[in-house]
């Protein structure tokens, strides 16, 4: 009996019609597409986008060249050279992030003892020729300077969970 029932179910295309009814209903459902450049989905304060180097409020760069980020980076995207500056402090002479290698895991930010390297909310950026996505120290500092307000606010929101 069960077999006969099954036969008629398949033979009369009942299941297929059920499926078509479902897609037919969805055709008139409210569309959930986000039309990207016009509409944007909300971002969390932990969003990991383009990297930036931060400065202290007095204008001094935070990075002390400890190379923890370079060591922790799983994609080997960071390259750091260090030298002693004229005032006797330890500073980087080169701090490069190859964004084409970077996997945006956020380990560099987590490992940084002075919150110097951070990942910002910026994700709409591009390069137009080879090497455009190889970010050097001045470029990273420029990103940091430009978005410091947002960066500081995001760090403050996350502070109680760290």
């Amino acid at each position, binding site marked *: 009996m069960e077999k006969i029932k099954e036969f008629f179910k398949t033979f009369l295309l009942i299941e*297929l019609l059920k*499926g078509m009814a*479902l897609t037919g209903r*969805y*055709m*008139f459902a409210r569309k*959930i597409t986000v039309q990207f450049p016009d509409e944007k989905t909300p971002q969390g304060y932990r969003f990991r986008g383009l990297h930036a180097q931060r400065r202290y409020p007095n204008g001094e760069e935070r990075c002390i060249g400890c190379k923890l980020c370079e060591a922790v980076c799983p994609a080997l995207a960071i390259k750091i050279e260090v030298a002693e500056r004229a005032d006797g402090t330890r500073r980087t002479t080169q701090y490069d992030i190859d964004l084409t290698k970077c996997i945006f895991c956020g380990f560099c930010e987590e490992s940084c003892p002075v919150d110097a390297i951070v990942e910002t909310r910026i994700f709409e950026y591009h390069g137009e020729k080879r090497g455009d996505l190889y970010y050097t120290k001045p470029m990273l500092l420029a990103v940091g300077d430009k978005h410091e307000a947002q960066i500081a606010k995001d760090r403050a929101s996350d502070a109680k969970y760290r």
Partner: protein
Amino acid sequence: MMEWLEPIQKMLGSAWLPIWTVLKIVAIVLPLMGAVAYLTLAERKVIGWMQIRIGPNRVGYFGLLQPLADGLKLLMKEIIVPSGANKFLFIIAPILTLMPALAVWAVIPFNAELVVANVNAGLLYVLAMASLGVYGVIIAGWASNSKYAFLGSLRSAAQIVSYEIAMGFALVTVLMAAQSLNLGDIVRGQQGAHGLLNWYFIPLFPMFVVYFISGVAETNRAPFDVAEGESEIVAGFHVEYSGMAFALFFLGEYANMILVSFLTSIMFLGGWLSPVPFLPDSILWMFIKVAFVLFLFLWFRATFPRYRYDQLMRLGWKVFIPVSLIWVVVVGAWMQTSYWLW
């Protein structure tokens, strides 16, 4: 109706007939190409809606210029002939796919008068041309010198051949009911006082379903698109094609979809006849029916997952062919009784 053409006819003399025929062909092929272009847009829109998306809407209002942008892109692209490919066959294959798909339109009646060639064996011609399309696919797969393309073409060749049998039997019942192979006469056979109750899809309902599903399989559309099978064999028989050569396959596939929709409308849904007796018959009915059947094509694609290859063959050989054979006998017997009302 055509009196105003007579002076031109006299002026051109014997050159008149070829020129007039070419004009008629252009009058069918150009709108057909437009229909194909906008069918691709309709497909993307409808499938988008069914997947709770909105489909293309960036190029022109409502995405209406999208087909033009796609066409232009394909025109600009380079046609790459793979090394080791048979160049002549590689180039000729897309043409062989598109050509039969266009040739069939000669016998399609749009309304009682509008048909390029009123052939008496129209249905036979349709079947012959439809089965020619498979050569393009086989040759494309073989000439590409690529294993995916070859696998795809083998699959599609077996599939098209199998489904053609069931399709043929489905059409046999139609010609039994209509007592004619002429497509115009088949539509006229469905004329009657009861509007849509006179159409053949009622007595031949199982054949209507078999024919339409075979038509979907014949055009290599989802859920029978094992010839392409993007997730299994990349893109099947046209994996090596690019640019306009690829576009010709695309045009052929969509032209075939429109063709199957026209044939379904003509043979089962009463062609240009009005569904209710108080409205006049018109070519508009034809287009409404065709649009509905085309929508079914898109609806299927949005709903059903692809058949596995052995399931596809089982459906063709073990379900459709027996069912259609039985129904041919049933219709034959039915027609001898007084209960045949069509």
